[in-house]
C-alpha cells in the first residue's frame, strides 16, 4: 500500500536528524503542541496556547502580523537591492536607474520594497489606532504601548533614511528640508543637524550615514524592539480581549467571584 504524503512526513519526523533539531517530539497532544512552541527559539516569544477567538479577524484585524509581514518583505527585498546599490554621490542615482531598467527583476524588487515601505507605515498607524480604540494599551499593557511608539519612530526613521538613497531631486530636497527641521531643536539643533549629515549640507557623508542607518542600525534596532514587543504580549497576558479585563463591573452583578475571567 502506497504511503501518503502525511505518512512520509511522519517518517521524516521520526528520523534521528529531525529529532536532534526539534526536541519537542511528534504527536498532536496539547502538551506536544505547547512544547513545539516553547522549545523553538523564534516561537517561544509567543504564548504556548492562544484562544481561537483571539485568532479571529475581528479581534485584531491581523494588523500587527501584517506589519511584521511587510517588515520581512522589506528585509527580503532590501538585501538584494544592496548588491547593486553603491552609496556614493556619482553612483547612487545611476544605480537606482540600473535597478529599474537594467537589472533583471530589479524593477520588481525596488517597487516591492517601496510599496511595502508605504504599506508598513500605513499598517503601523492602523495597528496603533486599533489598539487605541479597543483600549488594549491599558494596564498591564502600557509598557508594550511605549515599545510600540518606539517602533513607530523607528519605522518613520527607516522611511526617512531610505528616502534619500535614490539621490534624485525629490530625495535631495526632502532630506534638506527634513534635516533643517532637526536644526529647530533648542540649543543642540545645529549639532544634531551636523552629526546627522556628517557635514553642513546634504552631501557624500550624509548619503553614507543615511545608508548605514537605513541598512544596519535602524533594522537591527527595530528587530530588537520587535522581539521585546512580542515577548511582552505573552508576559502581559496574551492578546487583548474584552474578556481579559478585570471583572470590576461584573462583580456588582451579584457574582461573588472576582479577579479575571478565563482567557
Amino acid at each position, binding site marked *: 500500500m502506497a504511503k501518503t504524503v502525511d505518512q512520509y512526513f511522519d517518517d521524516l519526523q521520526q528520523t534521528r536528524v529531525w529529532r536532534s533539531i526539534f526536541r519537542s517530539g511528534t504527536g498532536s497532544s496539547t502538551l506536544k503542541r505547547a512544547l513545539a512552541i516553547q522549545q523553538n527559539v523564534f516561537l517561544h516569544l509567543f504564548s504556548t496556547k492562544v484562544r481561537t477567538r483571539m485568532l479571529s479577524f475581528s479581534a485584531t484585524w491581523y494588523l500587527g502580523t501584517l506589519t511584521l509581514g511587510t517588515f520581512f518583505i522589506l528585509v527580503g527585498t532590501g538585501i538584494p537591492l544592496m548588491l547593486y546599490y553603491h552609496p556614493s554621490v556619482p553612483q547612487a542615482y545611476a544605480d537606482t536607474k540600473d535597478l529599474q531598467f537594467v537589472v533583471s527583476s530589479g524593477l520588481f524588487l525596488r517597487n516591492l520594497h517601496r510599496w511595502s515601505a508605504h504599506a508598513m507605515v500605513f499598517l503601523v498607524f492602523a495597528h496603533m489606532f486599533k489598539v487605541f480604540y479597543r483600549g488594549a494599551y491599558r494596564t498591564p499593557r502600557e509598557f508594550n504601548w511605549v515599545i510600540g511608539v518606539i517602533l513607530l519612530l523607528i519605522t518613520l526613521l527607516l522611511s526617512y533614511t531610505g528616502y534619500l538613497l535614490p539621490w534624485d531631486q525629490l530625495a535631495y*530636497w526632502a532630506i*534638506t*528640508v527634513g*534635516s*533643517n*527641521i532637526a536644526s529647530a531643536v533648542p540649543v543642540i539643533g545645529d549639532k544634531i543637524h*551636523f*552629526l546627522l549629515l*556628517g*557635514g*553642513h*549640507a546634504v*552631501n*557624500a*557623508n550624509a548619503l553614507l550615514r543615511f545608508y548605514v542607518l537605513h541598512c544596519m542600525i535602524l533594522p537591527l534596532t527595530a528587530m530588537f524592539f520587535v522581539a521585546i514587543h512580542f515577548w511582552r504580549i505573552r508576559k502581559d497576558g496574551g492578546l487583548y480581549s474584552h474578556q481579559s479585563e478585570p471583572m470590576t463591573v461584573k462583580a456588582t452583578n451579584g457574582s461573588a467571584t472576582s479577579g479575571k475571567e478565563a482567557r
Partner: protein
Amino acid sequence: MAEEKQGPLGDELSRRKFFTKLGLGSLSIAAVGTAAFSYQYLEPNVLYEPSPVVNTGKPDRYPLDSVTLDVNNGIYIIHSQEGYFSLSAVCTHLGCLTAWKQELGIIACPCHGSKFEQSGRKIEGPAPRPLPWKRIWINDDGDLLVDRSTDVPALARDSFVRI
C-alpha cells in the same frame, strides 16, 4: 571595641564591597570615556565640502538691474543701481533653493511659498528671516568673489561692490 569584634568575614565583606565599588567606578569612567570618544568619532574633523568662497566671474556678465541665480553655489548676484551685491538663495525657512521671478520682480521659494524682495527683505511666507547678504569683492584679476560663510548687513555701503 566593636571594631575589634569584627571577624575576618566582616573584613572580607568590606574588602569585597571596596573592590566592587572600584570595579564599577572604573567601568563608569571607561563608559564616559567611550561616550566622549564615540561622539568625537561621529563628528568629522575634515569636510570635503566645496569652499565657501566662490568665483562668480567678471562683473560685466551681469547687466544693470539684473538678478542672476547661481544654482550650483546657491547665491544671487544682483547688479542694482547702487552696485553689485550678493544674496543667499537658500530659503531661511527649511533650506530650499529659491528662484527669481522676473515677471513679478520677487524671489520665491518653491517649497513652502516664502516670498522675498530683490533686497532679500521678506514679503510673506513661513520664512522667519530675510535672505542674508553675503560678502562680495573684486579680486586682482577683476573677478567677483563671494564668501558664502560671511553675512554682511543688508543695504550697507560696504555690502555693495561699485565699479
